[in-house]
């Protein structure tokens, strides 16, 4: 009797997850395996792939200055955009976490940029960054500052993209805001009775209580930062295809380089090797975060997933 019910559950269980399971093999596991194989071969799509062993990986690390450039650019972008995003998002969330009339309007305004179309946003910001007539340099001129060339400058194009990314902190901000609203008010009342000031409450109650949300945002923005593509593709380079990546490749990020190798140079093997290297970096950073997170992320009993 029991086994019959078990068997029935077994079949109906697999029936329900069947679409996902097929998709997993067809669109995730299968392509993943294939991608490993392709990364060990030389393949231009016009001829059959030929096995080259580790040659792609060797070339990437030893004789490809563009890869090193893209790695450095990506590291620069992640290093600045991720911490700045977290700090700004937390600051905004703290400001919004108050009982003020009309606070919802402010939340909406801060949140709005993060859900709009990135290509449209990129085009808007190209024009904001225009050195002569763009919004930013016009504003700087009012303050008596002679603004830089932004996207046309090797030095300033990455800071420009980072600045633009800060406009989209709304997603992280919302996560922090929800976490802040989940902190039980009794904790603050107890702290106040114990004579703790605002600053102490912030460091000893607020930060630990929202640390799971901070951890989540940190991991997600790291992964997102490593995969930055659309802005760099749309905003940098000239009308000539292949010039994406900005002045002297200053905004050639890893995914942009991978895209160019695959879909402009049709070096599918080389591009696959690049994809695995990217995955490796994302994996290592996520695992390191997880390890470090055990020290500073506070989970309430039974809350740990």
């Amino acid at each position, binding site marked *: 009797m029991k086994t019959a019910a078990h068997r029935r559950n*077994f079949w*109906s269980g*697999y*029936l*329900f*997850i*069947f*679409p*996902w399971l*097929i*998709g*997993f093999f067809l*669109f*995730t596991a299968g*392509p993943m395996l*294939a*991608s490993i194989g392709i990364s060990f071969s030389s393949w231009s*799509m016009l001829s059959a792939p030929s096995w080259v062993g580790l040659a792609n990986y060797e070339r990437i690390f030893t004789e490809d200055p563009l890869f090193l450039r893209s790695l450095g650019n990506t590291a620069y972008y992640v290093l600045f955009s991720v911490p700045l995003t977290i700090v700004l998002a937390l600051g905004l969330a703290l*400001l919004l976490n*108050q009982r*003020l009339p009309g606070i919802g309007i*402010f939340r*909406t305004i*801060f949140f*709005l*940029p993060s*859900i*709009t*179309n*990135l*290509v*449209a946003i990129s*085009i*808007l910001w190209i*024009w904001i960054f225009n050195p002569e*007539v763009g919004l930013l340099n016009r504003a700087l001129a009012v303050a008596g500052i002679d603004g830089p060339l932004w996207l046309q400058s090797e030095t300033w194009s990455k800071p420009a993209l980072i600045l633009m990314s800060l*406009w989209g902190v709304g997603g992280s901000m*919302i*996560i922090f805001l*929800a*976490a802040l609203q*989940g902190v039980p008010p009794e904790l603050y009342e107890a702290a106040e009775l114990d004579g703790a000031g605002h600053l102490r409450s912030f460091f000893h109650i607020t930060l630990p209580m929202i640390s*799971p*949300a901070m951890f*989540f945002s940190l991991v997600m923005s790291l*992964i997102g930062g490593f995969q930055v593509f*659309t802005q760099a*593709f*749309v905003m940098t380079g000239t009308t000539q*295809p292949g010039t994406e990546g900005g002045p002297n490749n200053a905004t050639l990020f890893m995914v942009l380089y*991978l895209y160019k190798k*695959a879909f402009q140079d049709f070096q*599918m093997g080389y591009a696959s090797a690049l*994809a695995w290297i*990217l*995955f490796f970096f994302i*994996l290592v950073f996520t695992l390191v975060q997880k390890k470090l997170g055990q020290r500073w*992320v506070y*989970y309430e009993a039974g*809350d740990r997933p």
Partner: protein
Amino acid sequence: MTETTRFSTVFRAALSRYTVMYLLLGALCLLFLAPFAWMLSVSGHDLAGVFAQPYRWIPDRYRWENFSLVTSLLPFWRYAANTLFITVFVLVGTLLSCSLAAYGFSRIRFRGRDTLFALCISTMMLPGQVTMIPLYMLFVSLGWIDTYFPLIVPAFFGSPFYIFLLRQFFMTIPREYDEAAVLDGAGRLRIYWSIILPLARPALAVVALFTFVGTWNDFFGPLIYLNSPETATLTLGLSMLKSQVVGTGATQWHLLMAGAVLIMLPNVLIFFLAQKHFVKGITVGGLRG
């Protein structure tokens, strides 16, 4: 007497705190709104107005014709129809496949379930670039390049984040409902369709919204799978228009901005109508840590 002075100091303190807060929030709001305001302002100028020194935020006459000009330049309505076509199919596919899997993962006990669910969750971490090239090859060999199949078909096979999100919600629905239905002789599929799905409407709305916005705004997919101008989506079309005109002398920035405004409009509208759902969807992942 003392009561009133106390009241007025408290009142005054609160008032000054309010003023400081509103000033701070207002200044930040201006910073966040400035790019949008700039976009709307540039869209209403003519070419000379765009480059004028000093710039006039409010054009002498708002040139609404820029919007109709850019709709013929893109071609906007053609691309809007293409995008809508893709979006509708992706919506149906995602809602169906993800809710089925979420039901299986949350309501039925079967061997291997927890391992498979862990596997499903872990694929969320896999960057799309790893599978991109083999998938592209697969779609090339199927003859699907320049068709909408590569953008639509995968949606019918589930997406880990939405499966996770729906599963979390399904687990909050009391099992008594299922048990009552079983007593009435309902099968699994029946329970899924006429009990769980109607009760899960808020969660399905979140998934639908995110899918809509994600598909409407998708750039990478259309960029690699669509390559003739007639099949393009709005996002791809705008990017193509940009690379055609930017850097060719006097770029028609007022028209590009008008195009950007038009493409953002559905997003903004949906966002205002359903902001609560967006907030909910974003926080489900974040609060779990």
